[in-house]
């Protein structure tokens, strides 16, 4: 009955309630849209760079990150490997060796990074099949190489063409080799696309004369595990004198800063949005309360407990906001889902800007239920806080004063 009364009271002033609901609707829709876009963009950035390539945590020999020469390669100890594998939240461990080299084909040459990978294990981190655009992927015993699409485009390479590499090997050894091309991949990241060449770990180790050595140990985590915690545990378990353990935020601080800065801007916009909505809801609740003081007086006089009257007003406020929230959420779902499956493709200046920052100029929306839930709850909380006003008014209402005209 109280709920029925509340529902009817909401519609007593149809126009005012509709305006309030519309304001909440727009705020919820905008908030969800903005966050789905932003978080989707960050997620995509992190996934392209971190989740599917560099891993959330990496282990290097001390000093490697600042001086990425092959002389900083190290031999990974089987017991260290086992220790790390046993840590909670660690899913896969990948060995890689990376070295810079000059590549050449016909009369063109270009600096590239050669990365030796273990094809079978790499498959666990990334679905390389999705990246392959031409040719075949590396197998365990492949002697050929695959290159990223930027490199292939630079040389205008076809499958079967042979690339020549010249570089510095381990401890001053010469590194020279010629390898046929067996595939081209899209690394979904302009930087990686422009400089990446892949071969199997043994082939790469042989090229730089660094048998059994690696430069990067890539440690991937299970979903939703905190990478900082994993890094912490690894640090406590292994010898810190000879290794550096870095999370993706340390390895690519630009990415982290970029996201943080952009995120702060988004949150500010949403806070302003919420402030406007708060005043909108408050204004309505204020009027809903003030114009009915006489009625409240009558109700308390004939024997309605103040608490029941308060509950009615709380219902009214919540029904009002809930209607707005639900309509916002319901309308946002198909929109967000559409852009999740059909990512927004940027063009013009924005696209160029993203490309130079090293990202694909596409924004797939995040369709996690977290976003609508968070924003619904925030507005619901705001409305609950606003309920304090009618509660206080009813608490101190004197029926005979309220009924005096």
């Amino acid at each position: 009955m109280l709920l029925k009364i509340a529902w009817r009271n909401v519609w007593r002033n149809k126009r005012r309630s509709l305006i309030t609901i519309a304001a909440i609707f727009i705020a919820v829709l905008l908030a969800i849209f903005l966050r789905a876009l932003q978080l989707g963009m960050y997620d995509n950035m992190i996934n392209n760079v971190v989740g599917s390539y560099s891993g959330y945590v990496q282990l290097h020999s001390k000093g490697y990150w600042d001086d990425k020469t092959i002389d900083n390669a190290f031999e990974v100890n089987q017991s260290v490997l086992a220790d790390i594998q046993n840590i909670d939240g660690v899913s896969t461990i990948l060995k890689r060796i990376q070295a810079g080299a000059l590549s050449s084909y016909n009369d063109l040459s270009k600096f590239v990074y050669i990365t030796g990978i273990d094809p079978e294990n790499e498959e666990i981190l990334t679905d390389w099949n999705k990246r392959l655009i031409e040719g075949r992927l590396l197998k365990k015993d492949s002697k050929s190489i695959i290159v990223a699409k930027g490199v292939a485009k630079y040389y205008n390479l076809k499958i079967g063409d042979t690339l020549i590499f010249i570089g510095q090997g381990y401890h001053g050894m010469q590194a020279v080799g010629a390898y046929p091309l067996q595939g081209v991949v899209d690394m979904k990241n302009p930087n990686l696309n422009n400089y990446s060449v892949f071969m199997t770990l043994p082939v790469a180790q042989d090229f730089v004369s660094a048998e059994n050595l690696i430069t990067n140990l890539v440690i991937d985590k299970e979903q939703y595990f905190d990478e900082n915690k994993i890094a912490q545990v690894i640090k406590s378990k292994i010898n810190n004198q000879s290794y550096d353990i870095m999370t993706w935020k340390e390895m690519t601080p630009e990415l982290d800063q970029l996201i943080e800065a952009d995120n702060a801007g988004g949150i500010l916009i949403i806070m302003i949005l919420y402030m406007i909505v708060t005043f909108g809801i408050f204004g309505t609740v204020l009027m809903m309360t003030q114009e009915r003081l006489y009625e409240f007086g009558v109700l308390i006089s004939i024997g309605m407990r103040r608490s029941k009257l308060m509950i009615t007003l709380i219902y009214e406020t919540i029904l009002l906001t809930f209607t707005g929230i639900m309509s916002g959420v319901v309308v946002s779902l198909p929109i967000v889902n559409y852009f999740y499956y059909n990512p927004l493709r940027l063009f013009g200046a924005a696209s160029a800007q993203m490309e130079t920052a090293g990202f694909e100029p596409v924004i797939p929306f995040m369709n996690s239920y977290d976003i609508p839930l968070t924003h619904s709850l925030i507005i619901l909380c705001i409305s609950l806080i606003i309920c304090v006003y009618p509660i206080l008014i009813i608490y101190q209402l004197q029926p005979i004063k309220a009924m005096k005209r």
Partner: protein
Amino acid sequence: MNVIETKNISKLYKQADQDIKALNDVSINFKKGEFTAIVGPSGSGKTTFLNTIGGLDSPSSGKVLIDNNEITKLNSNQLIDFRLRNIGFVFQSYNLIPVLTAKENVEFIMLMQGSSKSIRDKRSVELLKSVGLDDQLNRRPNQLSGGQQQRVAVARALASKPKFVLADEPTANLDSSSTSNLLDIMSRLNKKEKMTFIFSTHDQRVIDRANRIITLEDGKILSDINVK
């Protein structure tokens, strides 16, 4: 047996220039089944008196006993519950919950008392029939005339089976035919169900229907006459 007893109640309003004694040492009793009019000039204390015996206002001094319960001792929440169970109210106007129908308004008070749905249904229809509104059950207050609204208010006041009904100028906003209609209904309920009514009024026609007339002046009882 006395339904209401007041013992030396006074109500003092402290004003900047002078204090106003809205009630001045009033001691009076009401018996079950009385049909009483409180009369007197404007400002004589009628509303203050009804509010005090109805537990809406507390006297500055003195006691109010209802069925031998001293209501002047109850706290605010106890008073609300006491009013719900023992007293029916009819105010001058805007008595009803605007978003509820006539029937729902009558049921509302029984709902707060915790009556079951079947009892509420039966009694609300019965009561609205007794005030001649059985064809207006599902109308909202704004679809009813002022007189009809007051009749719904009387039905609601009776719905809780109170010990008495207080009505402060219930006919002040009504035309003469609605006034006599409402009075007919109240006096019939008074005779048939022995319901005690206490109402204040300025209207001579209403005074004529009462069987007890109490006249107030400056917060004091000027006269207390039993008619018939």
